[in-house]
């Protein structure tokens, strides 16, 4: 393992269930994303030493911070983690300068105070108190303070949750720029999928304390390993089917979805007659009310519009399929929706792009 990378393995069945695997390299942003109460913050607190899970191992570089097998548990003060708390937890009685200075362990390194202030663009605010700062400025002070203790790993607990959209965009960009300069692993926790996708070098989907899938944002968004990951990454169109044909030579597989035969790319990891979960991104569904136009396409289906909801610039169209009890959801532009004069109850034709159908091993979807 390269020096300064962090390797975390946590497990416990309660009171907060945890089953977490993290490996993060220097200058890499590892984003843990999941719904509220999924164990994200507990994971960060365990890494920092603020919470002790019942079993696991935390290795930072060549330093063993926690090992339940040997009973080793380095106290929080000696772990060298920079922690940015959700609401920053700045010390209200100290100025910006003193908030940062208090974390500088080595008095010889006091010159780094000005470097940190410049790195986090806090010049001119040194003598202000936390209550005299905006949310974005407070976030910068928290970041500077976290970096002041020369951390081996930077832990960010939803640091952008209390910040307006515009400031958030600025800070996200700054964090991405910062990661190469600080050259340490960065573990970031959020429930915001868009934020996670923009930041992550490596993304981990977590639910009910369990890391479900880790990989690049593209992989997780397009090739989720389970229906649960698909659901957590915002994919509505996840269903169950059976593999009904495989043709390696033609590079095609077919699934039986409640009597509808759908063609998809050849996926040899699934056997014939195997029950599978599958999903399709709404970007891979074409909609037309020209029956003749759609009929020539692969995976052509008849549907009825059961609901149209305009959400800002986009429109969510829900389609009922007469052949099944399932529904398909499409996100289309409001412009297209108006141009096509879509209306509830209207019959339309849809085709599902074969390469957009992604098969997954079956797993129960938690409610």
């Amino acid at each position, binding site marked *: 393992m390269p020096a300064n990378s962090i390797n975390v393995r946590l497990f416990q069945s309660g009171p907060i269930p945890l089953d977490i695997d993290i490996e993060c390299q220097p200058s890499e942003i590892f984003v843990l994303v999941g719904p509220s109460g999924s164990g994200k913050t507990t994971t960060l607190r365990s890494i920092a030493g*603020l919470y002790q899970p019942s079993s696991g191992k935390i290795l930072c570089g060549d330093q063993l911070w926690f090992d339940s097998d040997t009973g080793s548990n380095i106290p*929080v*003060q*000696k772990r060298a983690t920079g*922690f940015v*708390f959700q609401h920053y*937890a700045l010390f209200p009685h100290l100025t910006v300068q003193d908030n940062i200075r*208090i974390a500088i362990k080595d008095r010889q390194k006091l010159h780094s105070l000005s470097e940190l202030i410049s790195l986090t663009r806090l010049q001119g605010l040194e003598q202000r108190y936390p*209550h005299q700062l905006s949310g974005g400025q407070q976030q910068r002070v928290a970041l500077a*303070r976290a970096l002041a203790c020369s951390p081996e790993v930077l832990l960010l607990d939803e640091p952008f949750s209390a910040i307006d959209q515009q400031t958030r965009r600025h800070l996200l960009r700054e964090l991405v720029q910062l990661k190469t300069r600080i050259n340490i692993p960065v573990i970031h926790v959020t429930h915001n999928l868009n934020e996670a996708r923009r930041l992550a070098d490596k993304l981990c989907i977590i639910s009910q304390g369990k890391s479900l899938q880790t990989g690049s944002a593209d992989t997780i968004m397009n090739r989720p390993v389970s229906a649960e990951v698909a659901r957590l990454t915002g994919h509505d169109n996840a269903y169950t089917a059976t593999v009904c044909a495989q043709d390696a030579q033609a590079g095609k597989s077919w699934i039986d979805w409640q009597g509808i035969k759908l063609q998809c790319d050849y996926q040899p990891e699934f056997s014939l007659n195997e029950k599978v979960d599958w999903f399709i991104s709404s970007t891979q569904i074409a909609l037309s009310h020209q029956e003749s136009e759609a009929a020539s396409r692969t995976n052509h289906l008849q549907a009825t519009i059961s609901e149209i909801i305009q959400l800002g610039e986009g429109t969510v169209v829900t389609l009922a399929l007469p052949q099944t009890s399932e529904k398909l959801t499409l996100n289309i532009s409001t412009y297209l929706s108006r141009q096509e004069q879509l209306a509830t109850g209207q019959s339309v034709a849809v085709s599902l792009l074969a390469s957009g159908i992604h098969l997954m091993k079956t797993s129960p979807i938690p409610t």
Partner: protein
Amino acid sequence: MMDWQALKLSIELGLISCAVLIPSSILLSRILAWQRFRGRNFLQAFLSLPLLLPPTVLGYYLLTFTGSRSILGQWYENLFGTSLVFSFEGILLASIIFNIPFAVQPMQRAFESIPLVTREAAWTCGLSNWSTFWRIELPLAWPGILTAIILTFTHTLGEFGVVLMVGGNIQSETRTIAISIYDHVQAYDNAGAASMSALLLLISLTAITTIYVLNDRQEQRRAR
């Protein structure tokens, strides 16, 4: 006329009571603020008793448990060769006991107002428990600590019943300013009683005003 000796004794009693009570109450109030343990509510109720008990009842129990026939009283006499009751040390012990809630409660509220995450932030900054206490907790709890000091000191100056029962009325030994006022009234020295009463009134009013100002500042800080 003003009984300067009684005033001096009262101030000494107040200062020593604060010196003994405040540090120990800081530790006690931190525990009560942040730790949940069996018997915590009973302990809080027990410590609050001096607020509700008539001073004579408290004085009676103190006499019972520190008198020369009590275990504590006999132990003290064997050790120092003098009785604990009707002595300065006796009224000091009484003063410490009847001031416990005045010292503990404001500090407990002050420590309770410090969020756990603030202390956790200090730990992740590498601060030891002692540094966290010294550099984060104490400054943040300072208004509560100052309130406790003011309340303990002024309450000691004004306490009458318990001090009279435990210490009697011995000049330069147990006669505090509150007892002296009573003496002066009994002796029809209204001028002396008035001047000492006015002084106590002034001290109390200043103390309470200071506490309100401190609380106001703390509330403003919390509201930010």
